[in-house]
């Protein structure tokens, strides 16, 4: 029977990456002044699982490398060795290295072992420092081998005599002596003159009154007549050898006429040293087992270390990481799946109810129909919500890499940084999460490198030595907002301006508002760093960051205060698939507003209206002035121009500002499935997508932030015109 192990590879990779994440976060959480045993245990377990899995699934490079890591961890765990900062650093490098190896393997390419070999030699050096136990008992090993090697002696009868005196509680470990006899029988089955003879001894049987039914009091003498190696027999008794009395003797060397136990003991005196562990005396057992086992372990370690003897290869620039096929699976808790199945069940019931109703329908049953339909609507919505929930993961998945990143970077840049992470349980669609990782890394690197000042500079300015970088995530409206905030020097407007002029992005006399200046850093080819550093790239970053975020229908902006720091805010839709919408009619067209962005809907009264310039109106809504825009104007929709007075107005809130939008009529609210215009047609300003309505017509979904920008553009155009 042969089983294709590759079918388990994907799961193995996934759990290994998870294990590496756990290792990393545990290592970072490790407080060296007070080492928590459970943390060490967790790290060890992760490494151990990776090693075990890698060995089983045939990734010997990985298991060989992990072996040394595990060995050191095991020594630390057992308390044989203290853990030092150097060790932590080394372990962290291993985590990275293993990630690389795994990614390579996952992508199906041969992993580059240069770094692994390098690290391995460092581990060996550490391990070698504490290895003294090895040599002493090697002779026992060789002694052991002598017996089996001696089996070439073919004078006399072939086979073995075995004295098997099990410990009394052998049955309580599930070791049934009968199993061993059966296996011996199999060994001795074939060939002429072969056979098995089992002679029980009842001397140990106590008085019936003191006999315990679960104990084994019988011992056996077993004669195996077959040309077999001792090792084959030893294998059968492998699980009980440590706590049973077992003696082997070559048939050719013993006198079979007397099968007395005590004689056998005497005649095999030299052998007993090696194989026999006297169970009657537990102290003795401990003394015997320790030297017997330890050399085996240490020898194996030594062997593994030798095998891995470092070949110092010329340092090669690490090849570009082959982008592995993106993780296509998702882990879902059983609860979520059960909920889903439950809901599908209800859906089926509703469907069959409606089906029955349809077959024998008359007007008198209209009410049941309506009830059935509302039931269906509820089922559909619940089902949809459950399906969406499956895709939602806490943002901690994206945040988890930052403690490490910040730790390494701050070391590299010689800055002191404290990382604060908030809102880690905020949930986000998996696809969005995967795509936001890289832009976030870029922003954090940037804040650390350019945002935070050096320790010297900070103390000079009366700030705390350590800078703070805050990652925050929260839900706002239908969006998730992720902030990357630093308490550094803030963006230097003058320098940005100067640079932008230098690069020809703006004209020298161009007047820009603060936010327009900040916005310049998102332009392609813009870099303010005086020295291009390794850390935050070469000024190719921010425009890419913005583009990546825009691809997710999100937006990014920055605010900054001199001397107090900058905040980058990313807004992302929770999911890319479905939207709660308010349908509105303008002329003959139906548009959809995302329900979450609607603040209220009102009918305009003259007293609320104010004309600021030309055709630009604002209305006073309680204590605020809200600009008014007409979809009819923006989208150039035919139809008679209506008076603003008495018009229906939907007040929406985009990024930060409120806008009142004039529409002809409010229609219903419903959930709509978003279809991308960009993919099917092209990007259209102020429209975020389209959907198909119940009657088959297409309705466009209005992009509220886009509309806001448009209205402020109009405003400034009007202002310039007015000026």
């Amino acid at each position, binding site marked *: 029977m042969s089983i294709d192990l590759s079918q*388990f*590879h994907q799961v*193995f990779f996934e759990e290994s990456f998870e294990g590496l994440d756990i290792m990393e976060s545990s290592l970072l959480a490790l407080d060296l002044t007070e080492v928590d045993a459970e943390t060490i245990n967790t790290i060890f*377990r992760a490494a151990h699982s990776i090693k*075990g899995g890698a060995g089983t699934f045939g990734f010997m490079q990985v298991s060989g490398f992990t072996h040394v890591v*595990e060995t050191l961890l095991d020594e630390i765990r057992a308390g044989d060795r203290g853990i030092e900062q150097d060790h932590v650093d080394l372990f962290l490098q291993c985590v990275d290295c293993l990630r690389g190896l795994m990614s390579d393997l996952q992508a199906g390419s041969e992993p580059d072992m240069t770094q692994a070999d390098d690290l391995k030699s460092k581990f060996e050096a550490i391990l070698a420092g504490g290895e003294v136990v090895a040599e002493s008992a090697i002779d026992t090993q060789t002694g052991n081998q002598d017996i089996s090697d001696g089996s070439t002696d073919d004078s006399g009868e072939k086979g073995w005599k075995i004295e098997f005196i099990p410990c009394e509680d052998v049955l309580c*470990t599930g*070791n049934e002596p009968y199993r061993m006899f*059966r296996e011996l029988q199999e060994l001795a089955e074939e060939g002429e003159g072969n056979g098995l003879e089992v002679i029980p001894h009842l001397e140990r049987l106590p008085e019936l009154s003191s006999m315990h039914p679960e104990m084994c009091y019988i011992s056996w003498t077993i004669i195996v007549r077959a040309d077999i190696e001792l090792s084959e027999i030893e294998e059968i008794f492998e699980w009980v050898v440590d706590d049973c009395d077992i003696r082997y003797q070559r048939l050719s060397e013993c006198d079979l006429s007397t099968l007395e136990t005590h004689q056998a003991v005497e005649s095999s005196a030299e052998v007993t040293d090696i194989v026999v562990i006297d169970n009657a005396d537990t102290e003795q057992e401990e003394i015997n087992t320790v030297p017997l086992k330890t050399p085996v372990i240490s020898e194996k370690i030594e062997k593994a270390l030798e095998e891995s003897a470092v070949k110092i290869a010329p340092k090669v620039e690490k090849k570009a990481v082959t982008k592995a096929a993106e993780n296509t699976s998702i882990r879902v808790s059983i609860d979520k799946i059960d909920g889903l199945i439950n809901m599908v069940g209800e859906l089926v019931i509703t469907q069959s109810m409606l089906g029955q109703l349809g077959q024998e329908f008359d007007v008198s049953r209209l009410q049941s129909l309506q009830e059935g339909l509302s039931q269906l609507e509820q089922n559909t919505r619940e089902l949809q919500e459950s399906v969406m929930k499956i895709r939602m993961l806490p943002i901690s998945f994206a945040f988890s890499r930052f403690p490490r990143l910040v730790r390494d970077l701050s070391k590299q840049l010689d800055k002191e940084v404290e990382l604060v992470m908030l809102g880690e349980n905020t949930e986000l669609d998996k696809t969005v999460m995967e795509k936001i990782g890289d832009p976030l890394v870029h922003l954090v690197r940037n804040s650390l490198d350019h945002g935070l000042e050096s320790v010297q500079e900070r103390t000079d300015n009366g700030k705390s030595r350590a800078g703070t970088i805050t990652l925050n995530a929260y839900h706002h409206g239908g969006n998730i907002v992720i902030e990357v905030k630093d308490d550094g020097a803030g963006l230097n407007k003058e320098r940005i301006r100067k640079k932008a002029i230098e690069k020809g992005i703006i004209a020298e006399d161009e007047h820009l508002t603060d936010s327009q200046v900040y916005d310049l850093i998102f332009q392609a080819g813009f870099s303010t760093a005086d020295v291009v550093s390794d850390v935050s790239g070469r000024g190719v970053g921010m425009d890419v960051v913005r583009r990546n975020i825009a691809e997710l229908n999100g937006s990014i902006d920055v605010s900054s205060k001199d001397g107090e720091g900058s905040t980058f805010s990313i807004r992302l839709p929770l999911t890319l698939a479905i939207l709660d919408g308010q349908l509105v009619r303008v002329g003959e067209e139906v548009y959809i507003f995302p329900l979450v962005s609607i603040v209220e809907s009102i009918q305009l009264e003259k007293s609320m209206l104010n004309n600021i310039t030309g055709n630009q109106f604002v209305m006073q809504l309680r204590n605020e002035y809200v600009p008014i825009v007409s979809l009819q104007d923006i989208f150039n929709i035919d139809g008679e121009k209506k008076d603003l007075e008495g018009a229906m107005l939907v007040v929406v809130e985009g990024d930060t500002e409120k806008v009142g939008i004039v529409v002809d009529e409010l229609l219903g609210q419903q959930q709509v499935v978003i279809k991308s215009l960009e993919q099917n047609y092209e990007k259209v300003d102020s429209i975020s997508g389209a959907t198909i309505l119940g009657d088959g017509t297409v309705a466009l979904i209005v992009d509220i932030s886009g509309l806001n920008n448009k209205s402020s553009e109009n405003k400034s155009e009007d202002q310039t015109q007015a000026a």
Partner: protein
Amino acid sequence: MATILAVDDSASMRQMVTFTLKGAGYDVQEASDGSEALSIAKTRKFDLVLTDVNMPVMDGIELVTELRKLGDYKFVPVLMLTTESAGDKKMAGKQAGATGWIVKPFNPEQLLNTIKKVLG
């Protein structure tokens, strides 16, 4: 056919073990740590328990100890999946009452052979 309870915190190992044993016709149930295994074992008697040693919540050694306390599991074979380097674990497992061990890494054939031997 014989029933087997397979315990491992690693999903890939669990899948591999289950797939192998089911393929050979055994009735297999999975558990991802010792405490889950213990509660499953209390509801149903298995002919053999196959457990990893290093697991969160309850490790394999504690599992064996607990199993042996149950009347139903006094003599049921319990095999531990362990690595060759973990000699002390083998001893600890034995003392807790484990029947024997299968050394990792192992391949499906080795696993089946051992199971067959134990179950006869």
